[in-house]
């Protein structure tokens, strides 16, 4: 399924969504509600293999290739982290490996996510992004 927006557009859209939310409570609430938009995670992929290391809560990320695009399913047992991965997928899901690897993730800073969620090692944002990129790299190598 090709997304309606380009990655850049999706990222901008995300930044805009947050711009309208001045209070931190609203921003956090928005992140949490983002998590609720994730499709249910397939239980057969809830295994060690698909766990993202380096997060304080459990995060699962399962990639598959559909028509040359990488489709991710994801889940977390923690709400904010689930929201973060959902936001990442809003931008990164169903893209080609090249698109993913070519994307500068500066929208995260533009959203103010790194400041808002300052303890980024704990929420594993960096780890999740790295895992998305690693999958893309692996898949691009496989096709190349």
């Amino acid at each position, binding site marked *: 399924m090709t997304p309606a927006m380009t990655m850049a557009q999706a990222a901008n859209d995300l930044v805009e969504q947050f711009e309208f939310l001045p209070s*931190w*409570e609203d921003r*956090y*609430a928005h992140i*949490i509600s983002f998590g609720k938009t994730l499709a249910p995670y397939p239980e057969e992929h809830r295994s060690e293999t698909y766990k993202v290391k380096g997060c*304080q*809560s*459990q995060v699962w990320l399962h990639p598959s290739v559909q028509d040359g695009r990488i489709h991710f399913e994801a889940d977390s*047992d*923690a*709400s*904010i*982290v689930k929201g973060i991965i959902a936001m990442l997928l809003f931008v990164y899901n169903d893209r080609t490996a090249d698109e993913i690897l070519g994307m500068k993730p500066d929208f995260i800073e533009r959203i103010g996510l790194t*400041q*808002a*969620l*300052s*303890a980024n090692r*704990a*929420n594993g944002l960096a780890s999740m992004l790295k895992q998305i990129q690693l999958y893309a790299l692996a898949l691009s190598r496989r096709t190349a």
Partner: protein
Amino acid sequence: MTATFDIAAIRAEFPILSRRVHDGRPLVYMDSAATTMKPRHVLDAMRSFDEQHYSNVHRGSHTLAAEATEMFEGARTQVAAMLGANADEIIFTKGTTESVNLVAATWGRQHVQTEDVILVSAMEHHANIVPWQMVAAETGASVRPIPVLEDGSLDDASARQMLTADIRILAVTHVSNVLGTVNNVARLCAMARERGIVTFVDGAQAVQHGNVNVRDIGCDFYAFSAHKLYGPTGVGVLYGRREMLASMPPYQGGGAMIDRVSFAGTTYAEPPMRFEAGTPHLEGAIGLAAAIEWFRSIDCDALRHHEAELLAHATEELSRIDGMRIIGTSPNKVGIISFVVDGVHASDIGMIADRMGVAMRVGHHCAQPLMDRFGVSSTVRMSFGVHTSHDDVQQSVHAVAKAVEMLR
């Protein structure tokens, strides 16, 4: 520094408490069980050592070397006085973790045999489990835990039953870093001694809550870290009873721990030097001495009273939150509160509280077996320091309540 307890004055001594976090909110530091902040007295002592007296120690023939040696050995004497021990029974280590490893790798490898049992408790920090598992793996011994009761206290009846002749050493924590439980280590050590069992007490969480006296406890070994007693990281203490240390082989090899080195054969120094290879953490020892000096200037009874009040206050307020489950409600506990909330992930609470300026720790707290015991994968942990005020408690509880509200 006179022995009083004036919370405002104490707070003023911690530069980091002026730190502001998100949106200029003042820091509410509720993570003293992970590490304690440093008062100015400690920071100044280390700086002045570095600016005035710094040098490598031992065998130095110049003025600074003599001064630094005197200060370093003075720190050892200070630690000994605090614990009620002799100076030659005090070994400077990297921290509690290294202290346990030192005993496990020297006394342990020397004495632990196949079929032996190393008795610990189910509330131990990984530091007091893994080194014993390593020596057990090497020797064919096994590590067995004394169970923990539902309220977070040690199962004394089991302890008594389990202290049998096949136990080689009892290694138990003085205070639990998750539950706050204070174990009656004096009684445990007495029981062990009656049966000829060697005892190791992990004091990492005990020293910052009041007086510790190793003779009263009657243990063979006692360990703690300076960074949990308002001192620096990278330095800790192993107390070892003189007779124990005297018979132990060295741990690490290198300078200072030797008597004479040659390729034909090397002989070792007496304790404590035998166990202190290499250049010691000098600033660390000086900082620890300053921390002890500073901590002893606080009225210990008043501190304990204050902490008990904070604990009661926080426990009561937290309990009002719907779905709150406090893990560790032993009648005998220090200012550490671990909890989970039904239907809300600990990490979410930690992140939202952080956004509100409240620093609590979330995770397994290096006590996974204890997490398993209580059927959780992690908890939120709120822990008090000497600078914790009722206002801190109020704000922390408020942050937790707000987080739960946002997350449900």
